[in-house]
């Protein structure tokens, strides 16, 4: 990507990239739509041969496989009944994009439609890649996903990245949770998309506590365009657009029409075939209605429209996208859309201009949680706070198999958005941490990422969501990833695979259901089951039932991965209407890797949850002169 390394503090020649040698020696497995082998992003310049433990195969021809792309296998329709095994060519683009975001090599002069120009590079540029193709046009069959995970575990990947996922399921019925457990048993870090079903609560995918669940947020780069209505130059609204054609005359006011009131079958969402009498006009379309934003532009163009203003639905607020539209366009907020609609109603001959401002860096409100980013609480396990983290997932430039902008370059890129895009950012960052700390468990790496996350935006204010209001904890999880801090977290909350067994028993799964996940015989009657929130997780998710008067007690154990002699003091932000106590209040370490346990008591105050505030949040922070180790706390009343 051309901007997110800089946004995340990753720079050539110094800092975390230099310390980790750009992720050298780490193998990232990606389950996706395949890969455009031969794309310059998958050049192996500077990448050493794979480690001797690598057992996988690259099924492209020898000229396309190299020290960067060391594994490639197609699982789509690759059952025993098929004789037409083919290499995992990416006919879609998604897998090429995600792979290059995680571990693409440096490619200078990358841009799309001339926008977002810069050097495209993944988060771990010298890490190795293994592509396991599990998705085709119709989606990703979970039997194929399981087979790919089976192979990846055998092959010896270090990190797995899955930018896919379905609805919440009990973990014993969720193949990604099952496969991920096998992966963490082998020390493989597992990063998954939180889902694009936001901003509704309880909309998450991939919720298991042994998975890093990744939500999406913006960067400070905007592909800016504006809608100016009427003749008043001050009457303009900020928007976004990827394609900003230079030959479009932004000085001329064009007639403006609302799609919901023109045509034979007026359709505010600009459904195919709905528009008429819009020749030469700027058409105001609304998002949603089961029509993609790109298809809305196609309908406007089909009907002879000159340009499109795309306005959000109320739920998406100010969260807009820069997309590759087929005609001049700008995507504006719901608030802007309402004003434009009001203007159209107010005059007999409304007009508008579309102005293009190009690539602008410096949005002080970044990172903002994207409207589409799925939200907690977790349905499968409400006692674990999810998502875990947010990372860049809006308007991300990365490799693409074909040109989307008619460029003749071999280095083809696209700019797209989704939790699919944030997930490989975290996978690549995990690879850097794995390179730096090869002995850390997946849970320790996850803890390091979570406890060091940023909760403030570039302006130093709390991270906001699509409403431009402070985002709640079920949107941000621990906050926005800070790779450099994650590399040196001070303390980690570690969890071994066996530690999940009492947790799974606490979920009231049967012995057989747990065995499906853990691959080992479990008899819960012989195990001391624990409540979900007792798992040694780097965050807390507490549920308070109405009239609950009893306190809830939990313990956590932290391991010192900082200097041998370290003292940490306690800082608490107690959630609204809650009482909290922690014992001890000072943690004194004398050795590296020393573990200390502390106790946390939560109690609800009188009237908790009865004042119209259904959730509250806070944090528990251990701080020393050098470190802040922060655990977010969510309370649902």
């Amino acid at each position: 990507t051309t901007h997110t390394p800089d946004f995340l503090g990753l720079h050539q020649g110094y800092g975390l990239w230099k310390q980790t040698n750009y992720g050298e020696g780490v193998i990232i497995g990606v389950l996706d739509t395949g890969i455009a082998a031969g794309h310059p992003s998958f050049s192996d310049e500077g990448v050493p041969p794979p480690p001797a433990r690598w057992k996988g195969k690259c099924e492209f021809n020898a000229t396309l496989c190299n020290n960067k792309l060391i594994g490639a296998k197609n699982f789509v329709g690759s059952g025993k009944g098929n004789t037409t095994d083919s290499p995992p060519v990416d006919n879609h683009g998604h897998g090429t994009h995600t792979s290059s975001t995680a571990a693409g090599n440096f490619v200078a002069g990358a841009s799309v439609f001339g926008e977002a120009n810069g050097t495209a590079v993944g988060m771990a540029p010298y890490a190795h890649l293994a592509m396991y193709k599990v998705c085709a046009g119709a989606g990703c069959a979970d039997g194929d996903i399981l087979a790919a995970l089976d192979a990846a575990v055998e092959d010896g990947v270090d990190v797995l990245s899955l930018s896919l996922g379905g609805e919440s399921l009990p973990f014993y019925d969720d193949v990604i949770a099952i496969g991920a457990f096998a992966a963490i048993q082998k020390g493989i870090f597992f990063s998954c998309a939180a889902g694009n079903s936001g901003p509704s609560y309880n909309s998450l995918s991939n919720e298991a506590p042994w998975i890093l669940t990744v939500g999406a947020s913006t960067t400070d780069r905007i592909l800016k365009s504006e809608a100016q209505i009427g003749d008043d130059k001050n009457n303009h609204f900020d928007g976004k657009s990827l394609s900003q054609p230079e030959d479009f005359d932004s000085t001329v006011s064009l007639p403006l029409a609302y799609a919901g009131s023109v045509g034979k079958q007026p359709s505010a969402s600009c459904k195919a075939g709905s528009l008429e009498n819009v020749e030469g006009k700027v058409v105001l379309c609304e998002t949603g209605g089961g029509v993609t934003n790109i298809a809305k532009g196609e309908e406007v163009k089909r009907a002879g429209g000159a340009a499109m203003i795309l306005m959000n639905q109320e739920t998406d607020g100010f969260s807009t996208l820069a997309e590759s539209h087929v005609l001049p366009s700008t995507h504006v907020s719901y608030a802007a859309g309402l004003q434009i609609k009001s203007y159209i109603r107010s005059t007999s001959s409304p007009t508008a201009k579309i102005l293009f401002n190009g690539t602008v860096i410096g949005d002080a409100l970044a990172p903002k949680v994207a409207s589409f980013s799925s939200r907690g609480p977790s349905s499968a396990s409400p006692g674990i706070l999810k998502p875990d983290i947010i990372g860049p997932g809006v308007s991300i430039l990365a490799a693409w198999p074909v040109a989307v902008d008619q460029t003749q370059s071999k280095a083809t890129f696209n700019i797209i958005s989704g939790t699919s895009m944030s997930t490989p950012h975290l996978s690549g960052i995990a690879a850097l941490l794995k390179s730096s700390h090869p002995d850390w468990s997946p849970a320790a790496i996850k803890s390091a990422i979570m406890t060091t996350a940023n909760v403030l935006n570039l302006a130093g204010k709390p991270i906001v969501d699509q409403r431009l209001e402070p985002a709640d904890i079920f949107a941000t999880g621990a906050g926005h990833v800070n790779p450099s801090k994650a590399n040196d977290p001070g303390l980690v909350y570690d969890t071994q695979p066996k530690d999940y067994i009492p947790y799974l028993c606490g979920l009231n799964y049967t012995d057989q259901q747990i065995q499906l996940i853990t691959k080992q015989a479990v008899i819960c009657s012989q195990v001391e089951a624990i409540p979900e929130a007792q798992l040694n997780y780097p965050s807390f998710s507490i549920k308070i039932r109405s009239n609950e008067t009893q306190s809830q007690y939990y313990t956590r154990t932290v391991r010192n991965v900082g200097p041998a002699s370290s003292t940490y003091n306690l800082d608490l932000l107690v959630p609204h209407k809650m009482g909290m106590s922690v014992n001890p209040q000072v943690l004194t370490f004398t050795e590296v890797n020393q573990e200390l346990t502390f106790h946390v008591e939560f109690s609800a105050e009188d009237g908790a949850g009865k004042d119209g505030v259904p959730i509250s949040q806070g944090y528990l922070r251990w701080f020393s002169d050098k470190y802040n180790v922060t655990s977010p706390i969510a309370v649902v009343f």
Partner: protein
Amino acid sequence: AQEEQNSLQTYIVWVEKPVSRNIFSQSQEDLESWYQSFLPETTVNSNELKSSRIVHAYRNVGTGFAAKLTPEEVKAMEKKQGFVSARPERILPLQ
């Protein structure tokens, strides 16, 4: 045959580890042979047919396989010793 072919759907089937032997120290072929023992009787006489029914044989993520089956065949399989569960394959979206 065509009708049966049309009603085939891919199921993910979980089975127990065999009690008498440690399958994970054995070859992939041994494992597949254990999985094939769960396939319907109608395919027993044709190794080729049995083999073509198994789409994936799992080894590391659990004891189980993905196979093309009819609902009736799944019902029959449920009665076999060592069967744990089966459900139709799901399609998950990209995000």
